């Protein structure tokens, strides 16, 4: 499932951009030094394959509905983790640009959720080690079971990523537990189905072209299994969360969902001293800049009221807090909003007409 710009705060978005960007830079340099010269066109075509595969739906056994593969694990098995990560990132970029899936700010988060987990956790920590072990089952069944397991775990982590990013951003009011209960079971089901489809696909390709899977099917077309910087990747994830957290805390001039949840988690409003300092400075700054502090400020104060747990910060703006609910200010907002929309439409219309005139004059000559 794609994270959307609308649910992200800039701090969280930028934090995950930084994390995914770093992994992408590392993966790119690994691909550049990869001995497989045919890798560049292969990556391009396999990315296109994943797109094509998403257009075909299969029946989900036992239900009336249908699904399609996401392709993260499939790509890692066929290409190795680094090349697969670059491919997944490219697929998500095209989806964000052309199909409006997710968004540009959310792209970092999406690459992290859907790329890092299958490539650097699902493949090296689950798929490869488990497949190397001998088991009681036949190879085919074992491979299917392991593929399903790796897909489920990658998707669960990805869903957890979406929940974490949404919570950190504080745009949605969903409480953590409800969101978890919503996301994790859905993605368990999706993971099982996707895993099964991926296993069917890999099984077919293995039967048809065993030469593509060099050693016991664990590495696919990739070269010698290299060491995985699992620690590095996990570290980057933690870093992204911390950066996002710290930035949202500094960036927010109003107490928001994050601080609320920090207070919830730590059980004490420990961060208050610094926070209200930052808040005050920002409020001062805003006051100095605002042409009409009255409107600006009541708008600001309105939000302070929203967080009853954070009355200390509210103190700086509390005197003006209640007038925000005054109908007059809201009316100004509504009238102004409608007027703005009309203006936007008018500008579009005028620009368009001017252009048409220009065209007709041009052809008239």
């Amino acid at each position, binding site marked *: 499932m794609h994270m*959307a*710009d*609308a*649910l992200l705060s*800039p701090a969280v978005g930028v934090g995950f951009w930084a994390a995914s960007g770093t992994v*992408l830079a590392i993966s790119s340099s690994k691909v550049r030094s990869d001995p497989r010269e045919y890798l*560049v*066109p*292969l990556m*391009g*075509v*396999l990315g*296109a*394959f994943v*797109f*094509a*595969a998403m*257009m075909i*739906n*299969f*029946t989900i056994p036992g239900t009336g509905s*249908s699904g399609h593969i996401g392709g993260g694990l499939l790509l890692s098995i066929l290409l190795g983790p680094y090349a697969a990560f*670059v*491919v997944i*990132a*490219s*697929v998500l970029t095209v989806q964000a*640009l*052309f*199909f409006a*899936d997710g*968004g*540009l*700010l959310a792209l970092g988060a999406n690459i992290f959720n859907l790329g890092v987990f299958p490539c650097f956790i699902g493949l090296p920590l689950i798929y490869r080690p488990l497949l190397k072990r001998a088991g009681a089952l036949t190879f085919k069944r074992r491979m299917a079971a392991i593929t399903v397991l790796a897909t489920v775990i990658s998707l669960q982590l990805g869903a957890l990523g979406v929940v974490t990013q*949404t919570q950190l951003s*504080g*745009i*949605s*009011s*969903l409480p953590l537990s*409800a969101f978890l209960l919503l996301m994790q079971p859905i993605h368990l089901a999706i993971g099982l189905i996707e895993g099964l*489809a991926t296993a069917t*696909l890999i099984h077919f*390709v293995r039967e048809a072209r065993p030469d*593509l899977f060099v050693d016991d099917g664990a590495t696919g077309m990739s070269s010698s299994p290299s060491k995985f910087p699992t620690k590095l990747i996990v570290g980057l994830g933690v870093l992204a969360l911390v950066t996002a957290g710290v930035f949202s805390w500094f960036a927010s001039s109003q107490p*928001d969902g994050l601080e609320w949840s920090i207070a919830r988690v730590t059980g004490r409003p420990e961060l208050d001293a610094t926070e209200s300092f930052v808040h005050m400075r920002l409020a001062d700054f805003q006051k100095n800049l605002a042409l*009409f502090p009255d*409107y600006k400020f009541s708008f600001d104060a309105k939000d302070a009221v929203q967080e009853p747990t954070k009355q200390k910060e509210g103190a700086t703006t509390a005197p003006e807090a209640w007038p925000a*609910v005054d*109908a007059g200010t809201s009316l*100004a*907002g*509504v*009238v*102004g909003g409608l*007027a*703005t*929309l009309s203006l936007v439409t008018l500008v*579009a219309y005028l*620009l368009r007409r001017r252009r048409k005139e220009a065209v007709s004059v041009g052809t008239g000559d």
Partner: protein
Amino acid sequence: MSSIQSALNDFASLDALATQQTALSGLDPRAKVLATLGFIIAAVSFDRYAIAALLPFALFPVVIAVLGEVPLKPIGTKILVAAPFAIMVGVFNPLLDHKPLFEIFGISVSGGWVSFASILIRFALTVAAALVLVATTGFHQICVGLARLGVPQVFTTQLLFLHRYSLVLAGEVSRMNLARELRGGAKSLPLIVYGPMLGHLLLRAMDRSQRIYQAMISRGFNGEIRSSRVLHWRTSDSLFLAACWFCFMGARQFDLSHLLGAILLGRVT
């Protein structure tokens, strides 16, 4: 079937729009990419209850679309098609957040509805900005611009390959699927058919990549795709970018809708 075909058409048409000569096609793609990123960051940085303050931001995608001669209807359709996730998560806000936020014409509006509306507006704005960027700049130019902005070459080359071959493979998939449906297949297929069908496509795709590779090395490919158009950053690009960022910062700092409303209602003396 028709949905695959229409997705394909959309994919191609959005990019094709960028080939027209418009007021914006002279701009450096880097300027357009950076302006769009600035727009998105400014638009999502509002607090969760912002509605009126967000509306002036609609001016940017609309003006760019009109100047870039992008038809507004397909952009609107795409925004609607992509909306479900934002709606799904946002729709819980009205259920959970009952705090009355303001009263308008005697009806009190809860914070949940306000933040839900805010999510939807943000969603429409950010998605529209990204789509308009592609439609006015073109994917190839965006990739060249990204490479010049320091994005790893491996990644931009991958994006170009992906873009080029997704139309080829999607066409192949849609023909395979048409053949299967004409022989009486259902709309979605059982796993036992799915595996071999997509498996064949996968094997063919891999063979294709080998042929592409051979064709490329015989033409002297050395790991990067060269573009015949060299980017030049002009004064007009700096001006465009500065003007965009200035407007975003202004609209971020001052609630323009509120001001306008106040002026219209005669409250500012």
